[in-house]
Structure formats: structure tokens, C-alpha cells
């Protein structure tokens, strides 16, 4: 979990960096040149820290928020429930002898709460003075605050002679029945997160993706590789910062047990690495910046290793072909042949040695 730094802490880092380079300007009192620059720098870094925290949180279901959570849910084909209007009926009766014709776009307002409803039907509605007409309506705005109890009086400035009341009928004692209901708010992050979690724990939950996500949520696990060898037997290899003890592995087994289908046998083991030393001889282009080139080459090699999955064979030809466009000549000195790991091993690099020759 990434925790954004305090402004003062960022400023102190800046001052320390100034001291390291023996800056000629090193007065750090409030109001000084260095202090003012450090404060401006800290403001920028603080905003980047917030972005980093959000990025870090987005990797975990338990901490993802807003659109990040929506992306999580999309993995399981779930969507956040949107807000909805309240719906129901209004009874209308005219106080005048003459007939009133209400067009379909008539809007009625509750003067106490400000909630407005629109007629939910096409064509005009004929209102007379001797019987109440039932009109279906829905609220203009969305959300739970649009719900109105039966008997709420509504008003239309265009038709002041018509009495509108929420309800679809009256009881024998004359009370209105039928509220405006159903208005809901957009599903909150908390509710949505619970629903995603429920989806993870219900039927069919032994799928490889779900188990992998659950395990990588656990603080003991850095990466998890889940493989269903045969139906009913799931083999899991976990990678962590430290080698996990037997009791920690049992703890993980208990952790995912509720999420596996009944009768499934789960085997969890610590992933082991098969290390190789990488050596590459490089003849750069004449105009190449060697510092930059070596960074580029190293990061490409690291990427190739990070893309490997457990038990996957690593071929030096992949390095050769990936690095070839970056220099005049590239030769992989080590490894000299394919690296074939055991099924429970992941091929990783121990060291990357780049040798440059600028002689033609």
C-alpha cells in the first residue's frame, strides 16, 4: 500500500538533496529562496503521490474506488447499479365543472419537498369534477429522495383547478393508497464492493482467475499462478517477498478454501526460481548515448523475464531478436541455450551484464 508523504517530509527530502549536491543556495528558513522552491516542488510531488496512491489502490478490490472499482467489476461482467426514479400513480380531480385536458408532458410538483413528477403515458388525460382519474407518473429526478408517500398533494401551475394526490386508489375510509416508490441512488462503492465479493464467493468460484485475484489480495502473496491440472485438482504456486513457511502455506490454503468448489483438492506451494546470468555483447550505433542505450537494453531484458509464467522455457533467441533493433550488433553470450525450468520453477535473471564495443 502506498502512503502519500506529508508536505513537510517532501520538503525535507528536497533540502537533503540540495545539501547532497553542495548547493550554493542552502538557507532553508521560511521565506527563503530554497524554501519557496521546495514548497512549490512539494506541492507537485504531493499531487503525484495522490495519483500513485490511487494507482496502487486500484490494484486491490478492497481499496479500489469509483471508476477503478467499475473496472474491477467489469472483469466479472458486473455493473454498478445506477440511480432510478420513483414511479407510481396520481389521482386527479377537477374543482371546476369544465373538463380539463392534461397533455402528456404535464409536470406536477410537491411544494414541500420540490420533487417533480411527469406523466408516464402518451396522449392527453381527461379530468372531470365527479370522478378521480388514475395517472401513472415517474419522478423527473433520480434517487431515493424522490419517494413520496400516498396522500401527498401535488400542484401544477398550468392547471390550478385540478387537485393531484399521490395514490392509485382510496380505501373505504377515504385514505389514499399507493406511494411513489422505487427511487434508488447510484450504488455506493461499499455496496458495490460487497456485491463483487459475493460474486467471487458464489458458485463456480474455483475458476483460476478468481483464485488468482483472491490470493494476490492477500498480503503474503506477491504473485500467484493457478493451474487446474485435471478436473477437481488445483495446483497453486505463490511468489512472495520471503519464502513462505509451512504454516503460512496452510494459512493460505484455509484462506481460499471457502472459495473453492466442494470436493476440489487444492495444493499450494512456494514458487521457486531458476536463476540465470544474462550476458550480452553489444555493438552500438555510432550516435548512440551509451547510458541511455544500456537502460533501454536492461529494461527490455527485464520485461522479457517478467513476462514469463511458471514452468515456461526461456530462450536466448528471444533476447537476441528483441534487442537487435536497438543496436548495430547484438550477441547473447549467456545463456547459451534454452533454460528449461521444473514445472514449479520460474526462470528469473540474477544479473544482466552488458558489454559494449565501440570499435568498428
Amino acid at each position, binding site marked *: 500500500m502506498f502512503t502519500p508523504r506529508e508536505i513537510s517530509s517532501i520538503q525535507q527530502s528536497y533540502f537533503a538533496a540540495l545539501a547532497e549536491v553542495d548547493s550554493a543556495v*542552502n*538557507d532553508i*528558513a521560511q521565506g527563503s529562496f530554497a524554501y519557496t522552491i521546495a514548497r512549490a516542488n512539494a506541492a507537485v510531488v504531493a499531487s503525484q503521490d495522490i495519483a500513485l*496512491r490511487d494507482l496502487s489502490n486500484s490494484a486491490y478490490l478492497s481499496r479500489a474506488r469509483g471508476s477503478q472499482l467499475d473496472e474491477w467489476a467489469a472483469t466479472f461482467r458486473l455493473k454498478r447499479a445506477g440511480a432510478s426514479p420513483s414511479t407510481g400513480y396520481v389521482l386527479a380531480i377537477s374543482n371546476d365543472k369544465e373538463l380539463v385536458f392534461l397533455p402528456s408532458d404535464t409536470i406536477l410538483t410537491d411544494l414541500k419537498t420540490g420533487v417533480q413528477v411527469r406523466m408516464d403515458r402518451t396522449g392527453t388525460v381527461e379530468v372531470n369534477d365527479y370522478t378521480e382519474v388514475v395517472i401513472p407518473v415517474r419522478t423527473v429526478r433520480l434517487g431515493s429522495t424522490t419517494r413520496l408517500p400516498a396522500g401527498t398533494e401535488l400542484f401544477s401551475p398550468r392547471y390550478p383547478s385540478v387537485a393531484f394526490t399521490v395514490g392509485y386508489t382510496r380505501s373505504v375510509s377515504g385514505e389514499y393508497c399507493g406511494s411513489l416508490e422505487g427511487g434508488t441512488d447510484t450504488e455506493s462503492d461499499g455496496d458495490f464492493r460487497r456485491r463483487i465479493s459475493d460474486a467471487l464467493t458464489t458458485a463456480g468460484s474455483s475458476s483460476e482467475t478468481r483464485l488468482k485475484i483472491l490470493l494476490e489480495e492477500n498480503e503474503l502473496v506477491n504473485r500467484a499462478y493457478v493451474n487446474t491440472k485435471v478436473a477437481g485438482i488445483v495446483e497453486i504456486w505463490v511468489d512472495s517477498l520471503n519464502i513462505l513457511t509451512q504454516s503460512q502455506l496452510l494459512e493460505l490454503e484455509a484462506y481460499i478454501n471457502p472459495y473453492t468448489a466442494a470436493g476440489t483438492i487444492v495444493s499450494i506451494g512456494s514458487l521457486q526460481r531458476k536463476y540465470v546470468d544474462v550476458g550480452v555483447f553489444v555493438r552500438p550505433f555510432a550516435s548512440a548515448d551509451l547510458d541511455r542505450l544500456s537502460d533501454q537494453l536492461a529494461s527490455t531484458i527485464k520485461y522479457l523475464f517478467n513476462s514469463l509464467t511458471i514452468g515456461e522455457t526461456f530462450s536466448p533467441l528471444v533476447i537476441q531478436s528483441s534487442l537487435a533493433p536497438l543496436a548495430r550488433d547484438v550477441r547473447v553470450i549467456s545463456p547459451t541455450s534454452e533454460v528449461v525450468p521444473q514445472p514449479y520453477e520460474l526462470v528469473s535473471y540474477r544479473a544482466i551484464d552488458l558489454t559494449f564495443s565501440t570499435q568498428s
Partner: protein
Amino acid sequence: MTYQRRFTSRSFTRRVEARPEDRLPSITGADAIMEHQGDLVVSPEGDIAITTGSDLIIKGLIRRLGTPPSGYRRYVQTANGLQRLDSSYADELYDYLSSPLTKMSAAQMRAALRKAADLDGRVSIIDVQASKYEYASSRITLTITYRVKSSSELSTLNLTV
């Protein structure tokens, strides 16, 4: 980068010269010299002019006293919400500039000036005096007597409002 000491304010007078060792950057650090308008000063060698020692402290005090409330304050968005920074770095004396002066003004201004000056931990404020309000010129003169802690150098600073 070369060092240069230079006085840019005409409003203070020095009574005791600091000893050379008190002016070492190791005591106070070094800062670029800024004019009142915020411009940097260029040394004859073409570098940014630098001030150190007691000069730096005196310039720092003058800069603080020349900063109106909210003049240096900044708002920064942090993980805990909007944070206000450096709101104490200001001289409340400025609040009186746009108000009519009264007989009480001199005492109030003196207190405001003392409060601002006391916030600079590198100097000890010995005394703050305010002249009587002159109706004819609508002016009050304030005098701060202070000591630079690192050098025990005694100085006075006159401000006319």
C-alpha cells in the same frame, strides 16, 4: 558561482558590525538576494548574487515584515484534503494600512509588528517603539531594535507607515 554581499534596503541602520566569522554560510546558510520587487540580483561576475551570515538574517526579517497577510500563504492539495501552508509568515501590520489611523493605531501596530518579528527565530526582538500619530502627515514611524542571535549583532529597523 561566486559569493557577494550587498545591502539593498535603505530602511535599516547598523550599529555594530558583525565579526567576519559570524557571516560564514555554515552558520546561517546562503540565499539568493532578491530585490523588493522579487527580482534576483546579478553579481558583477554574472552569477546570481548570494547573501550569507547576519546579512541574510536581516534581509530575512525585512522580507517577513514586508509580507502582507496571505502574501506567502499557499493552499496545497494533499491526501488529507486542502492544506494551508505558511499562513503565519506575514506581517499583520498590513491590516492597518487600509484602515483609518486613530490614536490607538500606534499601539496596535506596535503589537502587530512585534508579533511578526518574534516569529523569526534567528533574531531576538529587544524593543519595538511607535511614534505618536501625526495628524498633519497621517504617519506613524515604527522602530524595531533586535539582535541577531548567531552574532549578537544589534540593529535597528525603521518603518514609516
